[in-house]
């Protein structure tokens, strides 16, 4: 049945419409693939196969009548950060215990409205805090890719490691993911998949377990740029339940994939040429520039002078918001509770047992930077720098239509390589956090393989609300790169 799993979402939707196969067949093929691969990859933390088959049958009934939405019958994986009604949602943290929401996140509800089928909940870093998917309560996710001549288990990146691994290994046609500092784009780059984070406010945050409210955005990880456009279109839209949701129409993004990019001005920021960046990343970037030039783009050298402050700024703002957002996990109303002799002990025991080390580290950092006497020096300063970073981009948009950078400073690394060194781990986000801080759309497109045979990605950052242009550019890169490599199915 691998013929039904190693196709793109677009191909599957076409096949469903032309009745080449049914959603049930498509879904069962994916169920079979998951059953085989998941013990090795650990991408799914909660398969929902019965529900999947039911949803598939319902879709088939619609398709038979020539009805159905844009995603009718397409089996997807859902990051465990999204609340799913009647399906356990844990953000891969022990503290949520067996928490089963009575409500559905707006983004997933949009997918079901359009006919998608849920295969299950996907693994991730605990509360989306991590860049290697090693902080999950369910254990790490394994990247389906292996380095040439090595059998070492590699990270799929994080925090949406389950989503990236599942898409790369053909365990779903596409997956939801979320991106606070690079959690969609970095895993996409590590797994040879496409991941886009839309403009802040495009995708509703309602029903998504919050990490850092001013940075969190949902988006898809997909097998192709077109697939990403199809999924993102379904996920986005104004939601009155999220006060930061933008009341703007959602463009028909799939129609922008394949459009000519001739005449578009592409910025190449010199500040993204960081010390110690591997030559192959540099080479990939040069190659990307050449491809877009060939496609008729004008290449413009630009400066984003505050880039070097982005990572420290991010690691103040995100933990600050997280320390407050995670205060609700106190053992009183839902999730895990560790009893204590009094209320304070109940809090202490619950949170000590419920949160993992990385979450604790960030809660502590966040609490510290918001404390009296430190607030101005850290948090207020960080907000000022954040404004400067956004202004850098505003300046750039007077000269260019989009910005091209590498997605990550390296390819996938081995599990355990960086888990003891938080700063080395945080450096993974160096090219991606700026888009979160400025609220801009960013997409990672697989652009080639490194010397070790592992996929590498290029990132396009767009103007606010201008996902359309970066979809066109991403399409051009995809076409030029003709990236067809797939991980060997070693499981």
């Amino acid at each position, binding site marked *: 049945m691998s013929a039904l799993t190693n196709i793109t979402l677009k191909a599957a939707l076409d096949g469903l419409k032309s009745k080449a196969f049914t959603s049930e067949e498509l879904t069962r093929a994916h169920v079979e693939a998951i059953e085989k691969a998941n013990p090795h990859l650990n991408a799914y933390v909660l398969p929902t196969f019965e529900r999947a088959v039911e949803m598939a049958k319902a879709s088939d009934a619609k398709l038979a009548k020539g009805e159905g939405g844009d995603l009718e019958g397409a089996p997807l994986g859902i990051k465990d950060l999204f*609340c799913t009604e009647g399906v356990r949602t844990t953000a891969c943290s022990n503290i949520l215990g067996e928490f089963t929401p009575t409500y559905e996140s707006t983004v997933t509800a949009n997918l079901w409205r359009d006919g998608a089928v849920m295969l299950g909940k996907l693994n991730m870093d605990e509360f989306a805090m991590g860049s290697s998917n090693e902080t999950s309560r369910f254990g790490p996710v394994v990247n389906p890719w292996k380095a040439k001549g090595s059998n070492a288990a590699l990270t799929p990146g994080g925090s949406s490691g389950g989503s990236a691994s599942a898409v790369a290994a053909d365990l779903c046609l596409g997956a939801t993911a979320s991106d606070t500092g690079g959690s969609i784009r970095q895993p996409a780059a590590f797994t040879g998949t496409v991941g886009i984070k839309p403009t802040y406010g495009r995708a509703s945050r309602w029903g998504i377990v919050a990490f850092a409210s001013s940075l969190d955005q949902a988006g898809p990880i997909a097998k192709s740029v077109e697939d990403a456009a199809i999924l993102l279109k379904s996920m986005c839209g104004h939601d009155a339940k999220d006060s930061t949701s933008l009341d703007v129409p959602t463009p028909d993004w799939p129609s922008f994939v394949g459009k000519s990019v001739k005449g578009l001005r592409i910025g190449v920021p010199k500040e993204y040429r960081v010390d110690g960046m591997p030559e192959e990343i540099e080479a990939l970037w040069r190659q990307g520039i050449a491809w877009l030039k060939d496609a008729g783009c004008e290449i413009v050298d630009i400066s984003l002078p505050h880039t070097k402050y982005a990572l420290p700024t991010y690691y103040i703002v995100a933990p600050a918001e997280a320390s407050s957002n995670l205060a609700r996990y106190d053992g009183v109303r839902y999730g895990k509770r560790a009893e204590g002799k009094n209320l304070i002990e109940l809090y202490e025991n619950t949170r000590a047992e419920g949160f993992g080390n990385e979450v604790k580290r960030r809660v502590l950092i966040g609490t510290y930077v918001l404390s009296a006497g430190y607030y101005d020096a850290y948090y207020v300063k960080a907000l000022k720098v954040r404004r400067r970073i956004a202004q850098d981009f505003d300046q750039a948009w007077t000269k260019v239509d989009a910005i091209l950078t590498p997605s990550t400073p390296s390819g996938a690394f081995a599990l355990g390589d960086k888990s003891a060194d938080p700063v080395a781990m945080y450096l993974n986000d160096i090219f991606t956090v700026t888009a979160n801080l400025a609220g801009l759309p960013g997409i990672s497109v697989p652009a080639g393989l490194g010397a070790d045979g592992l996929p590498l990605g290029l990132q396009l950052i767009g103007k606010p609300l201008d996902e359309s242009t970066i979809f066109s550019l991403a399409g051009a890169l995809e076409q030029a790169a003709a990236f067809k490599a797939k991980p060997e199915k070693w499981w």
Partner: protein
Amino acid sequence: MRRRMTDTVAERESKQIQGRTGLWEIVIGLEVHAQVSSKSKLFSGAAVGFGAGPNEQVSLVDAAMPGMLPVLNRFCVEQAVRTGLGLKAQINRKSRFARKNYFYADLPQGYQISQFDEPIVGEGEVEVEREDGSFFTVRIERLHLEQDAGKLIHDLSPTESFVDLNRAGTALMEIVSRPDMRSAEEATAYVQKLRTILIYLGTCDGDMEKGNLRADVNVSVCRPGDYEKYRETGSFKHLGTRCEIKNVNSFRFMRAAVEYEARRQIEIIEDGGKVLQETRLFDPTKGETRSMRSKEEAHDYRYFPDPDLLPLVVEDAWIEEIKKSLPELPDDKRRRFMSQYGLSSYDANVLISEQARADFYEKAAVGRDAKLVANWTTNELLARLTKDGHDIEDSPVPPEHIAELVALIEDGTISSKIAKQVFDYVWAGEGSPKAVVEKHGLVQVTDTGAIEAAIDQIMAANPDKVEAVKDKPQALGWFVGQVMKATGGKANPAAVNDILKAKLGV
């Protein structure tokens, strides 16, 4: 009206406290929490109401379920703006919500959404009457919107506590005054005035028993003259260290708490000690305050702008619209009652203290002697209502009957004395004043013949008194009394007087 910036010498002296080492003065500032009158909560669609079963009015947002987000209730914002306008305060076109972070079981989010450095309402002022009828002004520092917490229930089990989140997320207005009250009486008068304004505006029902209006009281003491220095310079260094007293939920407790706390602070200073800045709890059974937490133990609330909410922008056009919908406010009404109806400041105050009273009065006063109507409303009706535990809304005597009663007095049909009798019958439900007068035959005798006959009879029976009154005209009263007695009180007193004077030659 002249408003006080600083007191006159006499006013100041009346408020001073004699200590062992000299005189002291009290300085009080208040933080009043007023629950916004609204059908739903500040950031969730959940209902607000008193008396629902535990946790029956809790939405997913109120319970802080994962992924839930606050959405600001526009009506609560309107109520805050309305209140700001009623306090003659500056409405901030842009304000911001902030998170106040602390852990407690009645606070599901682990933070309270409040406003910190950018409140919706800025500086304003409230004009307050003292009991003696004089006025003083309390400056308002700010008003901000915030969420209320839930309620813990400790008495259902010896080992467990329970949480009721019905109140969690309900909208509160915190109204912060400057330290402009100088006695417990002034503090209670201020809260009473604030309460009246809120009720007029319809932005808070002012029900203190239900906890819909609560106050934290900041008390400090200083030496005579220091407060004036503070007012001149704005520098708090002239004032003593303040303590914040919580759990003061009635006017009586407020008086007791302020008096106890001032004495406590004076004693500490006079014993050579220093007052520590702290939060204290008022214990109503012992009538004393006790330490809750010191400044060092104070929470670090780690305020920061709530990233789930956009800055709150209030458009000028909306403010204008709200302004137009404001009712006549108590001070304006009082001034109008004094000028339009010629009432004393005291009577006007009594009548405007509740909107319903004022409305009642104005209905009754149409076309009548307004002062007389005011007397009947305040002296007879309100006294009787208070005695029988009625509100003016369910008065057994409607305004039309007060008007009719006054009309009967005005046209001489009944005397003021008879009117009291008539009022009693009307109160007892015997019908309108006219009907009662007819039924009981209470029409005043203005028939001079009948009065003359009565006088003649009395004069004939008491020749000694007739003689005596010629030297002592003040003895006329005895004759008046006799005539009234003879006529069953129905004789027109003015006519009786005139005829008596003529006949007795006084």
